[in-house]
């Protein structure tokens, strides 16, 4: 099967292949054409693509071109954005420059204004300068004139000096003359005093003789009376002394009841302290006087010589009041240091310091037997001190500051006090009660109270420039003493009676001493030696001591033992 089959297959193959070849001749003839056609188609499509692409590119280019053209036109109109920006910038710059310029104009304006102002100021300054120059010229002229005047004055002064010299020479000669005249006067005075002394001695001798005779008579009478029934004597006919006072009660002050003469002659003027004098008191014997001052010292002076005997220190503040005791051994000093001090005059040493007051002690007094001291103070109390015990035994509340106290009885049982409230009060020393308050007597504060030597009257000095004398028993005003020109100088100015009670002396604010007569209340005499206010007067025997605030004390006497000497 196989080979035959094979053969036939081969045959068939060959046949068919031939047929195929034939077919292909026809069918494949177009291959080339188809291929080239396809190629062309491809190329065509490619070119179409390209064309499209190119067209699009050209379109793009055209668009670009158009855009550019538009831009160019825009630029032509407005310039590029760059230029626009630049022009905007420039415009801004221009605007700012314009602003600056405006500013500069403004500043220029202000500067011009300032310039004008400164010119004005300059003109004013020139004017003032011219004025000043003018003034300087005037002043220099005046200066020269004054220089001339000065020269003239100098010359005149020289002349005057020459004249003074001449006058001094004349004065000296006159002084010499006066000295001589004073000598003469003193001589005469001495003679006068001597004569007076002799006459007084004679009178005293007579009085003594009289007294002795009286005593003798009395004794005889007594003898006869004791022998027989006591016969009522017709009355003691006492040989009276010339003085009007009754001598029966021997003056408890221990002073001789001789009539007082107003001392008129200032025998001594002493500058006593370094600062103001507040008080002066003469001793009961009349030999010394004491002064108390703001310099805290008390000075003891001799009356006759005016010499300083001793100085008592110890007070811490100003001394307002000094007072001697009955025997003149002790001295009380009341001080603004709220204490009163006691010195023994013989030794000059302080004995007691009486503290207890709570205000300035304006006054302190011994009682007659020097066992007690009464002090009055601005703390409105009166204190009674026992000197043996050494402390205050009674305090009396007085309602008003005490300016002065004094004791009335000779046993010191009644105390009188003058107050700031213009009232006078009387106190019982033993009970401490206010016995009487005398009001309505003064219209100014009472500056001093002074008892009379017989204890029946009391003298009050007051700031209302009057001095009153009151009766101690009836508390009635006996007389009011005043005078034109009499003004109480200080709140503690003291007035006092004369030893015989006939006169009252007080110092005035201008340094004048006024002497009133107690009987009729008229001014008997005024003496003036001092110029400042009188702070106190003290009369003993026939000597008055007056102290003025201005540190001087004048001793007034009745005889010119020596010519007035101005002593320190």
């Amino acid at each position, binding site marked *: 099967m196989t080979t035959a089959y094979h053969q036939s*297959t081969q045959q068939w193959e060959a046949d068919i292949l031939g047929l*195929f070849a034939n077919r292909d001749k*026809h069918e494949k003839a177009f291959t080339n054409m*188809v291929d080239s056609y*396809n190629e062309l188609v491809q190329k065509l499509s490619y070119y179409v693509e390209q064309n499209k692409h190119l067209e699009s590119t050209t379109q793009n280019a055209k668009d670009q071109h158009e855009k550019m053209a538009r831009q160019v036109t825009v630029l032509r109109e407005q310039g590029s954005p760059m230029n626009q920006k630049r022009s905007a910038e420039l415009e801004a710059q221009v605007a700012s420059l314009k602003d600056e310029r405006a500013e500069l104009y403004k500043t220029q304006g202000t500067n011009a204004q300032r310039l004008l102002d400164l010119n004005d100021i300059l003109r004013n300054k020139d004017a003032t300068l011219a004025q000043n120059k003018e003034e300087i010229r005037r002043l220099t002229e005046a200066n020269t004139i004054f220089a001339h005047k000065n020269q003239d004055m100098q010359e005149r002064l020289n002349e005057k000096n020459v004249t003074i010299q001449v006058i001094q020479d004349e004065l000296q000669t006159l002084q010499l003359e006066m000295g001589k005249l004073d000598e003469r006067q003193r001589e005469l005075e001495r003679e006068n005093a001597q004569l007076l002394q002799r006459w007084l001695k004679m009178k005293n001798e007579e009085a003594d003789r009289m007294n002795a005779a009286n005593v003798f008579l009395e004794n005889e009478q007594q003898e006869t009376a004791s022998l027989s029934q006591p016969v009522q004597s017709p009355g003691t006919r006492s040989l009276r002394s010339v003085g009007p006072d009754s001598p029966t009660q021997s003056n408890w002050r221990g002073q001789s009841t001789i009539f007082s003469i107003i001392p008129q002659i200032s025998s001594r003027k002493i500058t006593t302290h370094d600062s103001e004098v507040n008080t002066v008191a003469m001793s009961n014997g009349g030999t010394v006087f004491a002064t108390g001052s703001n310099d805290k010292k008390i000075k003891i002076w001799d009356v006759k010589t005016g010499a300083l005997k001793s100085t008592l220190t110890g007070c811490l503040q100003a001394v307002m009041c000094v007072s001697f005791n009955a025997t003149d051994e002790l001295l009380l000093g009341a001080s603004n240091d709220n204490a009163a001090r006691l010195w023994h005059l013989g030794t000059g040493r302080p004995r007691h310091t009486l503290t207890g007051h709570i205000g300035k002690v304006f006054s302190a007094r011994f009682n007659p037997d020097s066992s007690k001291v009464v002090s009055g103070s601005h703390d409105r109390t009166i204190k009674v001190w026992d000197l043996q015990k050494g402390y205050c035994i009674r305090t009396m509340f007085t309602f008003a500051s005490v300016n002065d106290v004094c004791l009335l009885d000779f046993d010191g049982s009644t105390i009188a006090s003058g107050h700031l409230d213009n009232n006078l009060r009387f106190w019982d020393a033993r009970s401490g009660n206010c016995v009487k308050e005398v009001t309505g007597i003064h219209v100014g504060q009472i500056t001093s109270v002074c008892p009379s030597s017989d204890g029946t009257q009391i003298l009050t000095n007051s700031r209302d420039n009057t001095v009153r004398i009151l009766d101690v028993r009836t508390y009635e005003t006996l007389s009011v003493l005043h005078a034109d020109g009499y003004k109480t100088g200080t709140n503690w100015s003291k007035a006092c009676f004369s030893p015989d009670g006939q006169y009252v002396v007080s110092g005035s604010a201008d340094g004048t001493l006024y002497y009133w007569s107690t009987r009729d209340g008229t001014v008997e005499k005024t003496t003036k030696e001092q110029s400042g206010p009188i702070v106190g007067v003290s009369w003993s025997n026939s000597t008055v001591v007056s102290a003025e605030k201005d540190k001087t004390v004048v001793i007034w006497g009745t005889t010119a033992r020596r010519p007035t000497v101005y002593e320190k």
Partner: protein
Amino acid sequence: MTQTQQSSEAPFNPVARAIWEGSIPIEISWDSAEANKYGAKERCLLMTQASRCSYLPLLTNEVWRHIRNKSVHMSLDQSNVWYEYEGVPLKWHYPIGLLYDIHELQAAACRGMMDSPPLPWKIVAHVEDFPVEKLIKITSENSCQDYFMSMIKEADYLRNGSTKKVMNMSKSDQTQLWDGMWTKSYELFWGMNQKLVLNDGTMARYLPVRIYLPENCPVVQEPVSPMDDEGNPRTLRQILNIALPDLFPLKDTPGQPARASVLIHGIVPSLDSSALWFAQTMAYPDNFLHLVVIINI
């Protein structure tokens, strides 16, 4: 004849090769009415040397591209493309060679002209009015491939009585057949196909043959076995006699030309060749012998 070659190497078979390389020039142009409608200036769409073994749908892609390029606005899609020749819609599931044989050669013979019909074959592409009563609509891209594979399966069934052989082939082998077919790769295709065709040496039960008659007669498909009852291999004449006894008598009357002849692949083969050999060698890629009958007047 390389019956004993079992390797997947493509056998050297000049006939098969010649068949494989057969091609006809086709000019596809667009229907003029449609072209006017769509604003295309030229009608000629495609001029190509199409392989006889290929199918029309495989050209559709390119045709469509050209249509798209030419048309101004195209709203239809590719699946609407159909072809016709002289008013007759072309069945797309026939191989191109078969279509040409049917239409050109057969028509020309019927008209009495034995000259070769004019080449290139001018067919007209249409985009609209798909003739659904005449043609099967292409539903998917793979329609052609599915139909091709179904023909191969049918051929296998005819040969072996079951499609076991084809179905047992791996997916990649099946696709290799199709791929080889449409990429025109002889080696790829015949590497697979020979297994089917040669059938491991076993004799086919029936031969896969289809006979096409002119003037739209229905297709004749008779089961013809390659061997006759005595075990002799049948010739083509005998096979045809079984199928169309009137047209193909067993013996030619002397003195008269044959009544009809058979056209395949554009040639008229001798009818005395072995049917089996014929079926093995002259088959189309889809393993069928598509025989076109030309009636001689």
